[in-house]
Structure formats: C-alpha cells, structure tokens
C-alpha cells in the first residue's frame, strides 16, 4: 500500500516538476534570454573562444530547444527528488497535510538549493567568469548546495527536538536561527570570486541575476502548488492511504483547514 503511494507520489512529483519547468521556461525565455543575448554580444565584441568561428549549436537553437531541454530536465529531476523528500517529510515534520507539506518542501528547496548558494556564488551571464577557475567554482557551488541542504535537515531535526520544550513557534525560530548562523560562518570562510570585468555593465549583471532568481522562484512556486494539489487529491479523498483509513474524521471541514 505504502509502496504504491511512493510510486504514485514520485510520478506526480516528476509531472509537477515538468509543469513547473514549463512555467519557468516561459519566464526564462521572455525575461532571461534578452540578457543572455546582450552578454554574448559583449563577449563577441571583445575576444574570447566562445561564439567565434564555427558554432556547434546555433544561438537560435540554444535559446529555444536547448533552453527548453535544460530547464525541463532540471524540472523533472528536482521534481522527482522533491517528491521523495516529501514522502519522507509527510507526517514527520509536524501536523501538516499533504498540501502544506508540499509547499514547505518547495519553499525549503528554493531556499537551500538556490537562494543560499546564490547569495555567495551568484549566477553569471556569459562573458563573466574566468574559464581557468571553472573547476573550483563548480566544486564550491555544489559544496554549498550540499552543505545548505544538510544544514536545513539538521535545523528541522533540531526544531523537532526543541518543540516539546519551546513550543512549535519558538522551536522553529531556533532551528532557523541556527541555520542562518552556520550558513553565515560558511559564507565567511569559503573563498569568494569576483570575475566581473571592469567594463561589464552593472545593470545587465543585476538584471540577469534577478532573472535567474525569478526563474527559480517560478519553478519552485509552481512545483509546490501543482504537486501539493496532486498529492492532496491522491492522499486525501480516502483513496486507500492508511492515514485517511483511521476513521471518517477526514471530513470536508478538516480538509478545508489544510
């Protein structure tokens, strides 16, 4: 029974991720592409190996098919992982129903997988970034993603431990404060990179970075809402999950509360 719901949730997570990816793709295409183009134009005007002579993939393909591939694959993959996290979190992080749990998982994912690494190692448009440091930058970026996810897990565990003594509200604050504190220490000790060329327009850089944030926010908001809806429909209407099986208490009134 449980195994079926894991599979069903995983499938729904990947579908919700695909839908969220499609939403994010719209934002990326209309908001982000013009900045990528502008940055590439600057890059071409200067020097550089990219975009010179023979093109492996044309700009048009990169901006349409390539962009769609990247974002949709990302959506499906993070949707699947988030669904697995949801399966574990459901019923373990407090008295949250499926929809609220989905929203919390999506919010936590946006924060830990994107916002926290972004504040230290923000996204760079083409023409920014020294190819010589790509190895270190990639390693540190993913290190910070992993660190941030692990710390968030630790913060939730801490919060759950403290909840009986401090109450849910204060325990959540304590967990979150601990997370911020340790992330702050990590920010202070991890090396920084400033590889923005002197003549790279600040406005373009700012707009590009803001766009990447908008894309991620769209993706995770879309995922949280769509997956929450699908999970609620799967788990709530007495569809054969043990949770709802333990009486007819799951009344419309109770469902409305979630």
């Amino acid at each position, binding site marked *: 029974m449980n195994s079926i719901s894991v599979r069903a949730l995983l499938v729904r997570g990947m579908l919700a991720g695909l839908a969220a990816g499609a939403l994010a793709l719209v934002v*990326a295409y209309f908001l982000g592409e013009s900045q990528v183009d502008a940055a590439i134009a600057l890059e071409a005007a200067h020097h550089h190996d990219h975009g010179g002579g023979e093109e492996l993939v044309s700009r048009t393909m990169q901006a349409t098919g390539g962009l769609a591939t990247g974002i949709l694959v*990302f959506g499906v993959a993070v949707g699947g992982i988030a669904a697995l996290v949801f399966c574990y979190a459901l019923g373990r992080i407090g008295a949250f129903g499926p929809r609220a749990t989905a929203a919390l998982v999506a919010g936590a994912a946006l924060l830990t997988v994107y916002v926290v690494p972004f504040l230290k190692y923000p*996204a760079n448009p*083409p023409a920014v970034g020294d190819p010589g440091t*790509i190895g270190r930058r990639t390693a540190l970026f993913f290190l910070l993603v992993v660190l941030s996810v692990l710390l968030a897990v630790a913060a939730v565990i801490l919060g759950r431990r403290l909840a009986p003594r401090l109450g849910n509200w204060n325990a959540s604050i304590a967990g979150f404060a601990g997370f911020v504190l340790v992330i702050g220490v990590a920010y202070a000790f991890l090396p920084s990179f400033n590889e923005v060329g002197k003549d790279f327009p600040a406005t373009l850089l700012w707009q590009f970075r803001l*766009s990447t944030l908008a894309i991620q926010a769209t993706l995770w908001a879309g995922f949280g809402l769509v997956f929450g809806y699908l999970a609620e429909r799967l788990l709530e209407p007495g569809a054969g999950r043990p*949770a709802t099986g333990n009486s007819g208490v799951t009344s419309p009134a109770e469902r409305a509360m979630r």
Partner: protein
Amino acid sequence: MAQSAATTTAVPAITPISLRTLAPWAAFFGILMLVLLYFAGAEQGAISVIAGEGVHEWVHDGRHLLGFPCH
C-alpha cells in the same frame, strides 16, 4: 478562536511512510535524478563524461539561467 477550534479538531496524524518502503525508491530514483541533474547542469563544464562540447553548448542558456557555473 478559529485557531483553537483547529487544534482541538486535531488533524488525525498522518502515518509517515516507513523508511523501509521509501529507501529503495529513494536510492534508485534519487541517483537517477542526480544523474539527470548532472547532465543538465554540469557535464562538459568542470568535468566531462562525454568528450567534446555538444552537451555543454546545447544546454548552455539553460545552465546560465538556472544559475549553474557554466564557464
């Protein structure tokens, strides 16, 4: 008032999905999804499994706009 009503109606606790049922799914699909993420986000950047630049160039814009270190 609404809040106290909510707490006394007491949401019937959701039975968590047991770790034993979740683990095989998490291990198999977790790794599969991470491989997908690797190809979308990092292949032919710092390290390459497939030689050349094709994958990198194809998902180039996606990588930049998703915030991955690209080049």
